[in-house]
């Protein structure tokens, strides 16, 4: 019988490892959410020339702790007309897939819950399960704003899942594996995947903003139209679990995927000598992307729901299908070199970015023509 780590019997070590892993993930999610809410408020304040939280603790650092304590201490309100079972189950249905997806995040070479050979597929699967909880939350609330918010969210998540998965497919095609560890190891030194597949990264980044309900795609909780979307009837810690924990946890997961797939994961200077340094590099990279998400949130206005859907179905999905086609063809034609794929992908980026003004101009012209056509009868009548 082999002896496990720390001289423990494997029978004791295996359940202990599970408990430690889940506890650590919960700890990281809770603290990550607290830190990210603070950062979000502070960074938006800086960008908008305000002060942000500054009363509680030094630089307002303890503000989110106070908020969290308030949320926990709040009365557990459940409106009487809601569907009891679903209303209670929905936060768990949103939270559990997010918690489970932390299993495969590679913080460093050896620091990961499990190195599944289907790691990427596993993450996609859990991401798709979140929709169920959101739809159930909207339905159980027995509130038209919640229902519309839930349905909008489901439509948005299902639509943006397609370009997201197609972007992941191109990485899998180039690397030849779905395991997070193998994908990281395939990007040694400065040769990270974003240099090879910049277009996939662009598509994934846009789709990830939509998947995590971040501005400019935060339609499901557009407070000017929908109160708080599917969260309208939730308060206290149920709201906290759904919004704060799940949303920020999902942002962290998505940014970890971006970092692992396109930016070399835990790799960085000095990792070979000191493997634990990987955690630092990984965290720094992930938080760089979280900050980028916040920057976008503070900068861009919200889209309209039809703009959101048409951008996905008419823009992102055809572009990412073309991307898969090009990458697959080139990967078959030049199995030993990544240079052709990189050239083609950079050309796609240029074409996509350059194409936006043309499409926009044509769309605006069409809108103006339609406005003129409808405006004339009014003028004639008056």
């Amino acid at each position: 019988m082999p002896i496990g780590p720390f001289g423990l019997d494997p029978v004791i070590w295996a359940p202990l490892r599970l408990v430690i892993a889940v506890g650590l993930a919960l700890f990281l999610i809770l603290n990550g959410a607290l830190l990210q809410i603070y950062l979000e408020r502070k960074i938006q304040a800086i960008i908008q020339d305000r002060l942000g939280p500054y009363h509680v603790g030094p630089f307002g650092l303890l503000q989110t702790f106070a908020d969290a304590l308030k949320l926990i201490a709040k009365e557990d309100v459940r409106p009487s007309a809601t569907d009891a079972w679903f209303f209670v189950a929905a936060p768990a249905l949103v939270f559990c897939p997010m918690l489970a997806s932390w299993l495969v995040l590679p913080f460093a070479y050896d620091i990961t819950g499990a190195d599944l050979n289907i790691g990427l597929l596993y993450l996609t699967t859990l991401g798709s399960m979140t929709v169920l909880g959101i739809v159930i939350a909207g339905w159980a609330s027995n509130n038209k704003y919640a229902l519309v918010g839930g349905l909008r969210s489901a439509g948005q998540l299902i639509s943006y899942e397609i370009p997201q998965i197609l972007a992941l497919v191109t990485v899998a095609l180039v690397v030849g594996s779905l395991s997070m560890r193998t994908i990281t190891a395939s990007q040694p030194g400065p040769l990270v995947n974003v240099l090879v597949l910049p277009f996939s990264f662009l598509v994934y980044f846009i789709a990830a903003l939509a998947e995590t309900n971040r501005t400019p795609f935060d339609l499901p909780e557009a407070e000017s139209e929908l109160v708080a979307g599917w969260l309208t009837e939730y308060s206290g810690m149920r709201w906290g679990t759904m919004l704060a924990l799940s949303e920020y946890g999902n942002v962290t997961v998505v940014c970890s995927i971006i970092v692992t797939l396109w930016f070399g994961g835990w790799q960085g200077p000095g990792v070979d000598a000191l493997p634990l340094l990987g955690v630092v590099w990984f965290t720094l990279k992930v938080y760089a992307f979280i900050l980028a998400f916040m920057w976008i949130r503070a900068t861009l206005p919200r889209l309209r729901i039809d703009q959101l859907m048409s951008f996905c179905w008419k823009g992102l999905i055809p572009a990412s299908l073309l991307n898969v086609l090009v990458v697959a063809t080139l990967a078959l034609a030049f199995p030993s070199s990544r240079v052709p794929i990189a050239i083609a992908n950079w050309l796609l980026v240029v074409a996509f970015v350059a194409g936006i003004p043309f499409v926009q101009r044509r769309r605006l012209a069409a809108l103006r023509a339609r406005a003129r056509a409808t405006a004339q009868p009014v003028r004639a009548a008056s």
Partner: protein
Amino acid sequence: MTFDFVEPIVFAMLSVGVIAAGAAVVLINRITAAALLMAFTFLCMAGMFVLLGAETIAAFQVLIYVGAITVLILYGVMFTKSGDRPYALFFQHQTPIAAIFVAAIAIPVLLLAFSFNAPAPPPRGGDLPGLATSVFTDFAFPFEIASVLLLAAMVGAIVLTKRDEAEGADTRRRERR
């Protein structure tokens, strides 16, 4: 001491979940609860695939059935006229015939299940490159046929909804005049 005792326990829990949730889907009157329980059945089935060593199939099971089909069903439920109306009416009269049919199918299956002693086949499907190679070489033709079928269904659905929408717009315009 090893962890061999865990697998039968997990299998028992999963099979109880599949059977109980599956029965509840049929018996329960509330259609949203039935849809959610169906998702639970799919999840338990995915767990069984994991026990068999077929993680890939488990992941696809959850991705497609829980993440897409259940949401689609819930969408359908929410957009159709509601009312948790009792479905018992449909099933009342067929009970004796249904019992005979179930017995005719279930008894041979049970007998077969208990007389089945062959060793379980070695788990496959967790092996991702092998699975992908077999899908795109040996089974490329059925795979393509299935995808063409799905494409035809999708085009058909789009044509149906599009025509409906245009007619609706026409009638609306006529009403306005």
